[in-house]
């Protein structure tokens, strides 16, 4: 066969086979087929050169070298293309279910919803310079009642509202009670720290009340006290408004109405516009548009006196929040008893 024809044939076959090679294995085969040192077609063609005369040898040599270069380039191009396709395939193959969880599942603990709400409020008040105080839950009748201007004859002292301790009953020399509110800490704090004073005291309280979906004998409150020389009702309003906005957003409206508590004068019932219906009325706010959140007022001079603070020099306000109520509102909990049920099906939701 004519040498040129051999080259043409090789070239034609190579291009055809190269086009047909669909994966790197086939390409490898192709490469071996043409370039194998033992039996490759190019090797064979080179070998056949020996029989040619010098001129033909030279001519053929040039041609075959050109062809070889061209083939190597083509082969490399094709290889890149196939490699790329195969990499893409491999990547596609590695795709996983990105929604599936890690196995085995990681166990996770939970803090109580009351803890979460309380911590949030503690942080808020600490950021405004308040101390966080704690005190006895089994409290003397004095700190629970007398010190906060609740006289002996007040109905709150009745057995049906207050748990008394055996041997320290209502009529004993030294009555002890399970504190009915966190207001017990008002006078304790005044005596310990004096004025000016900024403090909150969150904690567990008790009322002798039959338990049902809406009532608990054990509940949590957060009490706050601010005392200084020039603290006014306007300040009371400002601080309560800050709390309301912290809890329910910057647009939250606050409404204050008169309410009687023996330890304040004037007394305040603080409501916020219902966060669920924005004040339009819904099931949560019992169609009123308002949620009762605070009890508050300007501290009664008798209470300041009891705390060794001169009511002619200092004045201040006190406020209380039902933490239990805030928790129920926040999470839409309808049965208060769940909070103290210890039921993991409930606790694990927080």
């Amino acid at each position, binding site marked *: 066969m004519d040498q040129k024809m051999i080259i043409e044939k090789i070239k034609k076959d190579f291009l055809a086979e190269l086009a047909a090679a669909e994966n790197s294995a086939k390409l490898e085969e192709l490469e071996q087929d043409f370039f194998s040192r033992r039996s490759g077609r190019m090797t064979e063609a080179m070998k056949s050169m020996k029989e040619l005369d010098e001129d033909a040898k030279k001519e053929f040599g040039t041609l075959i070298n050109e062809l070889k270069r061209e083939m190597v380039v083509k082969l490399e191009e094709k290889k890149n293309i196939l490699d790329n396709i195969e990499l893409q395939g491999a990547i596609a193959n590695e795709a996983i279910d990105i929604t599936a969880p890690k196995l085995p599942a990681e166990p996770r603990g939970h803090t109580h919803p009351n803890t979460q709400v309380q911590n949030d409020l503690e942080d808020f008040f*600490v950021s405004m310079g308040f101390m966080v105080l704690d005190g006895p839950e089994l409290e003397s009748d004095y700190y629970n009642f007398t010190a906060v201007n609740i006289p002996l004859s007040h109905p709150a002292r009745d057995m049906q509202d207050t748990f008394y301790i055996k041997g320290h009953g209502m009529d004993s020399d030294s009555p002890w009670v399970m504190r009915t509110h966190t207001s017990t800490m008002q006078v304790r704090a005044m005596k310990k720290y004096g004025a000016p004073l900024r403090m909150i005291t969150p904690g*567990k309280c008790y009322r002798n009340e039959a*338990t049902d979906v809406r009532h608990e004998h054990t509940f949590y409150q957060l009490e706050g006290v601010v005392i200084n020389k020039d603290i006014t009702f*306007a300040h009371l309003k400002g601080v309560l408004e800050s709390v309301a906005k912290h809890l329910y957003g910057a647009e939250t409206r606050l409404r204050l109405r008169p309410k*009687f508590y023996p330890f304040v004068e004037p007394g305040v019932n603080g409501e916020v516009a219902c966060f669920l219906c924005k004040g339009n009325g819904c099931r949560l706010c019992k169609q009123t548009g308002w949620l009762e959140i605070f009890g508050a007022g300007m501290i009664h001079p008798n209470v300041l006196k009891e705390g060794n603070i001169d009511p002619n020099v200092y004045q201040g306000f006190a406020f209380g929040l039902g933490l239990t109520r805030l928790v129920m509102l926040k999470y839409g909990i309808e049965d208060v008893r769940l909070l103290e049920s210890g039921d993991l099906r409930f606790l694990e939701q927080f």
Partner: protein
Amino acid sequence: MLVSLSWLKQYIDLPDSTTSEEIGEKLKAGTVEVDGINNLAKNLSGVVVGRVVSAVKHPDADKLKLCQVDVGAEKLQIVCGGSNVRVGMLVALAKVGAKVRWHGEGELVELGPAKIRGLESFGMICASTEIGLGSMFPLKDEKEILDLTNVSLNGNEGFSGLVNRPSDSSLSAQNDDRAGVPLARALGLDDAVFEIDNKSLSNRPDLWGHYGIAREVAALFNKNLLEYKTKKIVKLKKSALKLKVEVKDIKMCPRYMAVAMSGIKVGPSPDWLKQKLAAVGVNSINNIVDIANFVMLDLGSPMHAFDASKLRITNYELRITVRPAVNGEMMEALDGKKYELNANDLVIASEDKVLALAGVIGGIDSAISDTTTEIIFESANFNPVNIRKTSTRLGIRTDSAQRFEKSLDPNWCPLALQKAVELVKRLCPGATVASVTADERNFQLNSRPIEISVDYFRKKIGVEIGQKKIVGILTKLGFAVKEKKEKLTVVIPSWRATKDVSIAEDLVEEVLRINGYDSVPAALPEFSINSPEVNTLRKLERQIKKILALASDYSEVYNYSFITPETAVRFGDEIAKYIELENPIAKDRPFLRREIAPGLVENLEKNQHHGDRIKLFEIGKVFNAEESGARISEKSDALLPRQETKLGMVFSQKKEGIPYYEMTSDLTKLGQELGVEFELRRIEDSQNYYHPGRSAEIFVGGNLVGTVGELHPVIQAGLRISEKVAILELSLDELNSRIEPDNKYRPLSPYPTVVRDIAFLVDKTVEHQNIVGVIQSADELVYSVNLFDVFEGDNVPLGKKSLAYRITYQSVKKTLTALEVETAHNKITRLLSDKFGVEIR
């Protein structure tokens, strides 16, 4: 308490354009909690007065009649089943669209046109109960429709204040042109009734009657309050009866007024009075009792009426004694029940009998009956605390007791008595005053005026209100104000002076609430920059909660502080040690918990089926009678019981044979996070609910802070828990005082470490902690020691265990040679053999 708007309007010149909603809002914003406003007319919408023009038997039903009813503008065909329907009768006709309650039961139903046994009916002739008037017109017979023929009805000209209407004005002559008048208006029920939350009135003795509420409304709307007018009781020159009142304990009864009246004819009250009482939910009984109730609802001062014949000693002498009851004395009250009294109760008595429990409830013996012809009216003032004690103890919550316990104004007594006498004379034309008016009294009101400056209001409120406004508000509320430049002298009116108002702050509230809390702009107080004292215990609690929940998968529970005796016993404790409630809510939970763990174990018991692995914790107070805590007051040395804040943890897991180690590992983790090293020491004689072989006391810096261990098998046997349980208790008060963050940096060595393992057999009783201690302190080249294998059983002799430790050697000065390491390692081997008799494997 229910308050009628039309009743209020008798005392205030409110314009008609003022709606009940506006009044309700103002009252809520300034005075009391209004739970609801009941527009009576709204419920009777579509119900009119009808006149039966004809009534013939329904052709297809024996018990039904086919009626034509005149309703003014038209005549309606109505099928009616009323047994008493007849021609000419005035009836309550509910037109199509009105809402009725079928047979007085169930939900309100809107009427549509109906076909009854084939005949069309365009509405319904109603029984009183079907339109909510059952208390005003009680049913005598189930089938009876409401007969309005003899009821005095208002005409179309409108309602004009019932109280001043002559009672004998019979409108029945012109009945016919009443047809078509809305029933609400005809009955004087075109009224709004405010439902006021009694709790919000508890500090206001003056608001328990319409006149008091009217005073508030007048102040809130800046209108004038009309005077409470009464006629003086005629002073008899010669009285028919001699009435003697003796008050044995004037402290319990600061004022007692009484007067006898004769010529009484007991009978039903006129409609206006019935209607007024019905509007505020009070049933009509008879004219005398209704008058007493009316005065109470009007002025707020409770009254009582006795049948005078029961108090006679002679034909002309009557005697009333107000005295403490004798222990064991019995009284049958108007509610039909018999009560046993004691010396703390105050009674109104005749010579030989208890007539009434003072201020609480009347007795049945002296009750007004149909045959009563002579009465005695009582208008008194009783000690509020005493009234509350008696009424609470006996469980009698009457309108009267509810008022007296608020500290009523003794100056109301004559007003109430005069009002009652005046009304009796009007309702019983033959009645006359038959005795001198008795008035026993000894009371003093806090009438000392309050001196207050106008600036004081600004100082308390934060904004100026203005002198004119301040004086205006106080005056409207009945305070007498004298102005001297900016100084005010304020006299408290008697009805506020009993307990409610006594100091300057009270006046600030009065002005502020009437002016509106809304009128005060919010402001924030200014304070010097002081960083608040840190509550380290609270901080520790919060850190621990976070670590346990986030790093060790514990869930937090809140338990009651109250436990049952069964719980104490289950956990091997003696009930006698517990602090007990005098009045537990549930008889079964009378004790205050002494420990935190039992509650958690019981939580675990309840949650057992929740999953294979349960970890719970709680932080709370426990109550301990043996140790003392805070003072009961600054003036006393007496101390409250100690109330320690404790952390409790429980853990159990399916098939976990030694949960102890997970618990101690969690403790170590907690310590690492807190920067505290916990040391465990075997408990020498475990007495409580801890497993004696698997429990330890926890120490920090040599101080006991808690206990960790598995539940004692004997205790566990009494619980419904199948897996082994690990528990941990830490006193956070103790821990808090022991924490000294001491996590110092150790310089990094540039020289390489050499690791050598050591494995040996040793007696089971030898503790890891001691072994580590020996290795650690054996040579300064020891950098760290870690246990990596523990083995007992096959190939290990009984009573022994196999331990393997990895020891890392390193120097900060040089690269260690093989010989140096060998020397140190040999030293350790020797020490372990000497101290614990280990056999190197």
